[in-house]
């Protein structure tokens, strides 16, 4: 029986490794390879850790299988009488310590880029694309009026505190220019939500009472799926939205169309204050 069980335990770990190995081919893997520079770094880090942990996993399981097998075939009278080994303890403390310390230090730059504000791409910081407010169960988007130029940090803060005439509003459909870092300001109108775009590997909780800047860069022009990743009530699963990354030109056109739509029927004096106001005569 002992031999059977040794093989049983070895077998399960082989199945596990095989399952992971075939997963990409079976479609049980990342939805796509990361489509943002930061995401690529995250993926690299993921694979690095995957290799390290796979080796550790195989190592421990093989060791386990081996000692089990030896135990099952042990014909000695008695088990070995040993209370341990000091040098082994030292080895298996120091080796993992180095590996872990390495992983810990190696990842710091990626985290810095993603979250430390002084490492954010400054262009994106100076001209935020939009303010995104999560609500049960939708994402409300507010773009600054087309042509609105932010004069420094305090101007941005003013814009965040007070809606301005000329701001453009939509729901569940965020358009951003592709191939350059963009920054949104994330807030929540009611409970906690989380801004998650799987293909871009970005995720940031929207916390009531806080305005959190999030930057990302889409390296392809396409519509990305955008979901909510923090439990926000019964409709949590259906906060379905999309982020459309498109060329600069398309983005401009999009904003323009949005503007037309929004100021189409009335309140001309509001539209006046926006730079592109005069074009409305075409209607």
């Amino acid at each position, binding site marked *: 029986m*002992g031999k059977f069980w040794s093989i049983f335990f070895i077998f399960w770990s082989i199945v596990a490794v095989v399952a992971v190995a075939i997963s990409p081919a079976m479609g049980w893997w990342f939805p796509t390879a990361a489509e943002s520079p930061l995401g690529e770094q995250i993926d690299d880090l993921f694979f690095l850790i995957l290799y390290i942990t796979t080796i550790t996993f195989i190592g421990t399981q093989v060791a386990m299988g081996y000692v089990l097998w030896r135990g099952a075939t042990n014909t000695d009278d008695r088990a070995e009488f040993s209370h341990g080994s000091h040098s082994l303890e030292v080895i298996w403390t120091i080796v993992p310590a180095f590996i872990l310390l390495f992983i810990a230090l190696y990842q710091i730059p990626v985290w810095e880029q993603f979250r430390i504000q002084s490492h954010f791409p400054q262009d994106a910081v100076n001209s935020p694309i939009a303010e995104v407010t999560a609500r049960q169960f939708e994402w409300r988007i507010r773009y600054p009026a087309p042509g609105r130029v932010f004069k420094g940090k305090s101007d941005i803060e003013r814009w965040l505190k007070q809606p301005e005439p000329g701001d453009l509003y939509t729901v569940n459909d965020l358009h951003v220019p592709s191939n350059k870092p963009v920054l949104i300001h994330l807030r929540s109108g009611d409970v906690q939500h989380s801004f998650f775009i799987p293909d871009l590997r970005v995720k940031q909780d929207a916390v*009531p009472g806080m305005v959190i800047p999030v930057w990302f860069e889409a390296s392809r022009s396409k519509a990305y799926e955008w979901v909510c990743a923090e439990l926000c009530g*019964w409709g949590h699963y259906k906060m379905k939205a999309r982020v459309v990354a498109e060329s600069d030109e398309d983005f401009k056109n999009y904003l323009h169309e949005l503007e037309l739509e929004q100021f189409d029927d009335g309140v001309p004096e509001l539209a006046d204050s926006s730079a592109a106001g005069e074009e409305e005569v075409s209607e």
Partner: protein
Amino acid sequence: MSTTHPTHLDSVVGDAHHAEHHHELSFIKKYVFSTDHKMIGIQFLITTLLMLMVGGALALGVRWQLAFRWSTMPIVGEWLFSGEGGQISPEFYTMLFTMHATVMIFLVIIPILAGAFGNFLIPLMIGADDMAFPVLNMLSYWFMWPAILCFAFALGLGPESITGVIGGMNAGSAQGWTSYPVLSAIAESAPGSQMAQTWWLLAVTFVGFSSMMGSINYMTTIINMRAPGLTLFRMPLTIWAMFITAILQAFALPVLTAAGFMLVADRVLGTCFFIPSGVIVNNADPTTGGGQPLLWQHLFWFYSHPAVYIMLLPAMGMVSDMLSVMCRKPVFGYKPMVYSLAAIAGLGFIVWGHHMFTSGMNPALGMTFMISTMMIALPSAIKTFNWIGTIWGGKPQFNAVFLNCVAFVSLFVVGGLSGIFMAAVPVDIYFHDTYFIVAHFHYVLFGATLFGVFGAIQFWFPKMFGRMMNDTLGQIHFVLTFIGMNCTFFPMHMLGIAGMPRRYADPYLHPYLEHLLPMNQFMTISAMVMGFAQFILLFNFVYSIFCGEKCGRNPWNANTLEWTAPSPPGHGNFDIPPVCYRGPYEYSSPLAVDKDYLPQSEYIPRKPGEKPGDGQH
């Protein structure tokens, strides 16, 4: 003074009446409001096993929806949702996983480890006649019941007029077991945020009181009531683990209790600790306040991260003991094992922020938490390698106890290694709140802890009831559970990598997740197999209480003190007060001549000319 222990007593069965004579206790005193730690331990064990069924049934509800979304649940569906035509509702789904986790964590894992095994084993293994505070001990069990009642109310059971939960189970508590405000603080935010959430918080407070009383009792008992000669470094690892767990509880739990009071106050007294101002939830009036939701997350995880180790350390200790007995070999590296337990506990206090990497916490703080989280893998590594070292060169008996222990180690490694991915902050940006997390914690909680518990039940059952559990049934239960568990939870890693968020009633609404439906169906079927397997455990347990093979004092030929007491021990535990002469793991010692073990209480007179100290560690 009786020094050598009468091992021939092994053949004497059921000599418990020795102590029973002077205490003819009434039925109520003996089986219900008992102050005897063994009875309390068994009460805890049976209660938690029942709760395991409840938690498992809720889990199967979760799995049902994920595999066969919005379709009528078998058996219970018609009855639960007569209104919706038997169909599950999203509110109900959120309630399901919330209560599943709550029941599993607060009513199963924590009380089964500390309450059941802690209670039963501590006095026996340290050679004491009972706990330091038996009445407190009894109260700690009976505080579970108000908690269970409140959880039932939180689930939406119970008459509306009493509970105030309008809407039955669709209005059951549904904030996730983490209960993040503002969702959990403002009644308008979800159906489950109304009265049910207040009951939930109350229940957690009751569980907290129960654990608190237990932990103070355990600490006092272990510090002050050890048998003569049982120095700290002669204590079995189970006792060390229980001790350190109790310390974790004592320091971490009050913070959760305090935070729970604050949240209750926010809900019913109009305070605003966690509620910022100007929030308009579901068309309610804007809030007035100035509090911060992140504060709850910090306070909650300050408890709940140590709590995950509270849910693991005792199992680690028990597995170390069981492996040593089953392999007939001393634990490899006893002291490193003790120090790593302590290190896990110590580090466990400074890593809580790893649950908040994407929460909008200060990134510098996040970095600190990342480094400490990485470091906590170290003591775990030491333990893992020492377990393997313990098996190495042993003569293992491949019975159900041993298999469960090996599964513990094997699966703990998987769960631990997936923790490393999430400890890396950038990777956690992607993995946070996806099924990768769900995979991680089911591997550590189910794969490690529960397998440890299954082993421990099988191992100490003879001491509890004087009869052995059936080993064949045990092995069948083991295989089914092991396969079912891996088939259910291993694919969750892939779901996580595919970006499937957790707590989703219907993930397939999103095109990028549609193709994962078949895999989820496979997992659900595996979960059912695993659930079915638990009936074998149940049957084995009940059957063996009445019809198991009778056993003597020391059926496993083990060293620790509890095996010198009668099976089951009478009131006051030991007929011969034990004295301890050595550490607990002297298996296959050359000093033991006619047997391969050397009980802690067995005195070996020194042969002339022998150096002092040989063998009597």
